[in-house]
């Protein structure tokens, strides 16, 4: 390993507080804020000096942040990449500076997987599959579905679409009759759903939203159109934020696939392990659970975000 000297330095001087740089995408949703919060509070718990950088959704800002972290000689870097591609050159630089990188949220597309220590993330494709399978079962394999996609071109939007379609395409009785981007927001989710309801009328049997926020927007649109979300129109989504659980308890949302943002503990475990010289598995998949109305009430009090 390149980072032998660093390891020695850390190992030799146990009480020296380590410094970790965290490059976060931004603060575009409550989910992401929860993730940031999880990593910050875990750093505080462990007495780690955390350098936080918010990239405001821009990859170049994340690259700048990594360069700043290199210059400041941090001990490790946590990176929540905004896209999967484009990390090769900067990660090479980080490696030659001997700093281990822990990826959270989603992977990176690099030719050499020694460029990062480990990835701690949910599998977006699997989330899409889980949602689809639940829906197929719920609807007995027949019905029309509309899809509210995430921001065009973003990794979760692409993967959650992929996984969902994979399952649904194998169901001759189920068709996705409309599909549009709701940009991961409540307002857009509502607007798009409104238009869908006008265009398709009562043909819509189910809504699949790439995140809870859009689902909540869609639920409002369904209600305003005079139909009952949860019964007339089945609503499934992904993320599992608190508001989604509240909606499930109220009977308006049928199902949500958890995509946990609480990656702090796992991330810092990984950092400690790497700094102690251990080799980690390249991929630590976060186990995502699926919740529906039957399990929602019990889970609601546990939701922190």
């Amino acid at each position, binding site marked *: 390993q390149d980072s032998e000297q660093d390891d020695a330095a850390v190992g030799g001087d146990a009480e020296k507080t380590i410094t970790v740089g965290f490059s976060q995408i*931004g603060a575009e949703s409550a989910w992401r804020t929860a993730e*940031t919060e999880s990593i910050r509070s875990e750093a505080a718990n462990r007495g780690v000096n955390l*350098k936080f950088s918010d990239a405001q959704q821009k990859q170049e800002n994340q*690259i700048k942040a990594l360069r700043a972290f290199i*210059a400041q000689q941090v001990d490790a870097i946590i990176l929540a990449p905004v896209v999967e*591609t*484009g990390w090769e050159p900067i990660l090479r630089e980080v490696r030659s500076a001997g700093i281990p990188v822990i990826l959270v949220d989603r992977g990176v*597309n690099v030719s050499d997987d020694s460029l990062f220590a480990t990835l701690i993330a949910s599998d977006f494709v699997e989330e899409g599959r889980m949602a689809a399978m639940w829906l197929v079962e719920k609807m007995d394999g027949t019905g029309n579905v509309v899809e509210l996609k995430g921001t*065009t*071109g973003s990794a979760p939007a692409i993967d959650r679409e992929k996984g969902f379609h994979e399952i649904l395409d194998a169901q001759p009785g189920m068709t996705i009759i409309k599909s549009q981007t709701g940009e991961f927001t409540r307002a857009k989710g509502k607007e798009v759903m409104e238009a869908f309801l006008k265009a398709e009328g009562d043909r819509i049997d189910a809504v699949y939203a790439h995140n809870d926020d859009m689902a909540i927007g869609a639920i409002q649109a369904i209600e305003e159109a005079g139909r009952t979300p949860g019964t007339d129109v089945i609503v499934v989504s992904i993320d599992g934020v608190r508001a989604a659980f509240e909606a499930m308890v109220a009977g308006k949302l049928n199902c949500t696939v958890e995509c946990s943002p609480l990656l702090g503990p796992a991330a810092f475990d990984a950092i400690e392990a790497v700094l102690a010289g251990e080799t980690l598995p390249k991929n630590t998949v976060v186990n995502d659970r699926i919740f529906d109305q039957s399990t929602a009430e019990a889970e609601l009090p546990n939701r922190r975000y």
Partner: protein
Amino acid sequence: MIARLMRQYGTLAATAVVCALLYVIAGVRYEYFFSWRVFFAFFSDNAFLGIAAVGMTFVILSGGIDLSVGAMIGCASIIIATLVEVAGWHPAMAVLCVLVLGTLFGASMGGLIHRFALPPFIVTLAGMFLARGVGFVVHQESISIEHQFYPAILDLPAGLARAAHLSDDAAQLVGLFVQPTAVVFLLVLAVGIYLAHMTRFGRNTYAVGGSEDSALLMGLPVGRTKVQVYALSGFCSALAGAVYTLYTFSGNPTAGTMLELDAIAAVVIGGTLLTGGVGYVAGTLLGVLIFGIIQTAINFDGSLSSWWTRIAIGFLLLIFILLQRLLQRTLGNAST
């Protein structure tokens, strides 16, 4: 003489002073800030923004605006990546092709603006929609470029240094600091300064921005200049897209989202008037650097939450601009 220089370059000087001040304060405040690595990163990390901003400077000097640059970067980068990775082209060919496309795209926007007297804002906004849309149509997902040409370019400076018989350590340092992206940026900047101040095209750009009606009555080629200006901006943003692929070894249709605003802000902060006719290409470098310094300083601080980051950026910009205005006024008064 001094009075004249002061009068001519007063804004530039004020901007440079405040920029340097910002750099020094950040350097004193944050450990490691005064390192060469950080200094060179200002140029390489902001290269594609800077290149687009140089093109934008000309557009703004001519009294127009180009909102399509950010989308063009995304579009160019994904086209290059698709040509290289899917169609198997050599990257150099792909870049060339994209540069031609970008120039033509810019020229056609300029043509519409001139021929039908359309407002540049809407035409280029439509251009932004189109470029972004075409990027998505070409490939919705970002693509990694695995072609060996890219790492080769990245290693070029170090290789050249070795060829020049520098020691291995020195060559490595050269490789670390002399980023090809930064080199391209500085080249574009130099060409931009030359074009603006040393060619008829550049001077016509100022004239058209100063007063289009007068330029017309003075017998200047107003229409041609406008088309050229947008073509240049299209070229620059396509080049910025190519630099983006070099910067990240990837093409991404969402790259450069809202970058046009940063580019415009960099140009305007650099002292160029949005109404046209007044400003300097060199000022744009300062504008880009100022954004870079603010960003890097916040990264170095590392204690700000997401929202405080935004507030701090806004606040620093505000302080900076007020200082700039103040200096400008005092310098301006001193010279008359």
